[in-house]
């Protein structure tokens, strides 16, 4: 009977103040959508870093007038360097072949360049791609070295943009969460006010505190859960529409977001939404009902 009583009170409470309930649910939904989005982005950036750093190379270009001795010295040094995982030597002919492949759409350019003009290079894979700086410091003054190029520098810019978007989404999520919490507090106060007579009688006859508070707290939790479901639907909608459009062009750059990754965000959103609403409602009641 008591469970039934509490549950029916929850529904009555949500319905009594339905405009406020809707406002509360929408703000919670937007906040949780932003939270879920930023969570996804965080995961993506992590995934992409793994993926790209796996294939990333540091290229050491040699001077055109490099001699045999300098080259073999450098080769030996690189092969024994603990920071380096793999060394590939690219000679002029091979460099030319790569150049041809890369610019096959521009035959004029290809025909203008002779294999002799292209520098020889060592292509390195590092044990830890983030240690590029120490490789650079170590080899930049070595004889015969012309230039050291790190591909990860370019990627860092991309990651920087993505992290920026993520921070932005997180900031909006927090601002919306504050608004949502104020709405939760307000809704609970209104609900408690409209039930003040019942609450006074319950306190008088010695109903336990949890029994008095449970309907209100659950009201907030239900709103939080509905908000998180709406937030999830928003994420799914975003994927459905964006996958066909603008995201498709980025397909090569950003690894696609799978359905399971979106669904995995739901426990986070529901957990945060439910818990935060519950705590807010409980704290509000402590002040408002003094129970």
């Amino acid at each position, binding site marked *: 009977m008591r469970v039934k*009583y509490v549950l029916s009170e929850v529904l009555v409470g949500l319905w009594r103040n339905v405009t406020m309930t809707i406002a509360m649910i929408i703000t919670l939904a937007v906040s949780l959508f932003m939270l879920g989005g930023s969570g996804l982005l965080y995961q993506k950036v992590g995934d992409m870093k793994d993926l790209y750093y796996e294939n990333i190379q540091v290229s050491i270009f040699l001077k055109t007038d490099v001699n045999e001795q300098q080259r073999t010295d450098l080769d030996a040094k690189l092969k024994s360097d603990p920071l380096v995982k793999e060394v590939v030597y690219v000679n002029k002919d091979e460099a030319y072949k790569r150049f041809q492949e890369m610019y096959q759409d521009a035959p004029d350019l290809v025909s203008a360049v002779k294999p002799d003009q292209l520098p020889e290079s060592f292509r390195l894979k590092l044990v830890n791609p983030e240690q590029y700086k120490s490789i650079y410091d170590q080899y930049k003054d070595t004889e015969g070295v012309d230039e050291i190029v790190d591909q990860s520098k370019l990627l860092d810019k991309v990651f920087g943009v993505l992290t920026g978007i993520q921070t932005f989404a997180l900031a909006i999520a927090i601002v919306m969460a504050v608004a949502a919490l104020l709405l939760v507090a307000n809704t609970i106060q209104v609900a408690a006010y409209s039930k003040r*007579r*019942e609450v006074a*009688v319950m*306190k*008088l*006859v*010695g*109903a336990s505190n949890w029994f*008095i508070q449970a309907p209100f707290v659950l009201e907030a939790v239900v709103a939080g859960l509905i908000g998180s479901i709406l937030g999830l639907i928003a994420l799914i909608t975003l994927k459905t529409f964006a996958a066909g459009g603008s995201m498709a062009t980025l397909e090569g750059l950003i690894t696609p977001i799978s359905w399971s990754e979106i669904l995995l965000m739901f426990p986070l959103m529901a957990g945060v939404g439910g818990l935060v609403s519950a705590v807010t409602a409980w704290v509000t009641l402590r002040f408002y009902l003094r129970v």
Partner: protein
Amino acid sequence: MTKTYPKASRPSLDNVSVSIEKGEFVFFIGPSGSGKSTIIKMLLHEVSPNKGRVVVNGKDVTSMRSWKRPHFRRSIGCVFQDFRLLPNRTAYENVAFALEVIGKTKAVARRVVPEVLELVGLGGKEHRYPHELSGGEQQRVAVARAFVNRPLILLADEPTGNLDPDTSIEIMRLLDRINRTGTTVVMVTHDSNIVNQMRRRVVEIESGRIVRDQARGVYG
């Protein structure tokens, strides 16, 4: 015990000591603001004394943790001047509500509630709403609600304050009947008529001090 409210210039109760035996019927009388209601609030553990102790039913209420308060309240029934009934519930439902929120089943309520409504003289009016009942009848519902859980103590804070003299006497008869079941009744009032008729113990308070404690007293 002594109770001083914050911002008050003098204590609401100043070094008051009173002991009430089980099964007694006690009136607390005195002018408004004399500190009578503070005593009720202390017995309910709504406020705590600054100095001294409040012992109810052998338990020191002063040191009781607030989470134990709900359970403690179940041993005390309360009746007020303004009835405090739920307007959207019938007489039966008002009494049953008090039982259900402390975890009693509907079956228990079905057995006990008609019994107690009969006891307070409301048999046949179970399904009336408060606005369909007279003031005296509403107070009877309140008494039924306070008594349905068979409390050890019944606190009545000016229960006849809103009632005409005849109705007041009926309510007093009811409280007297409840007292005879062994329930201690503590009543705060300034209705001299009633005090004079009942001839029970009277404790008079003035400006936070006990000025009289008389076994079979009058208002005087």
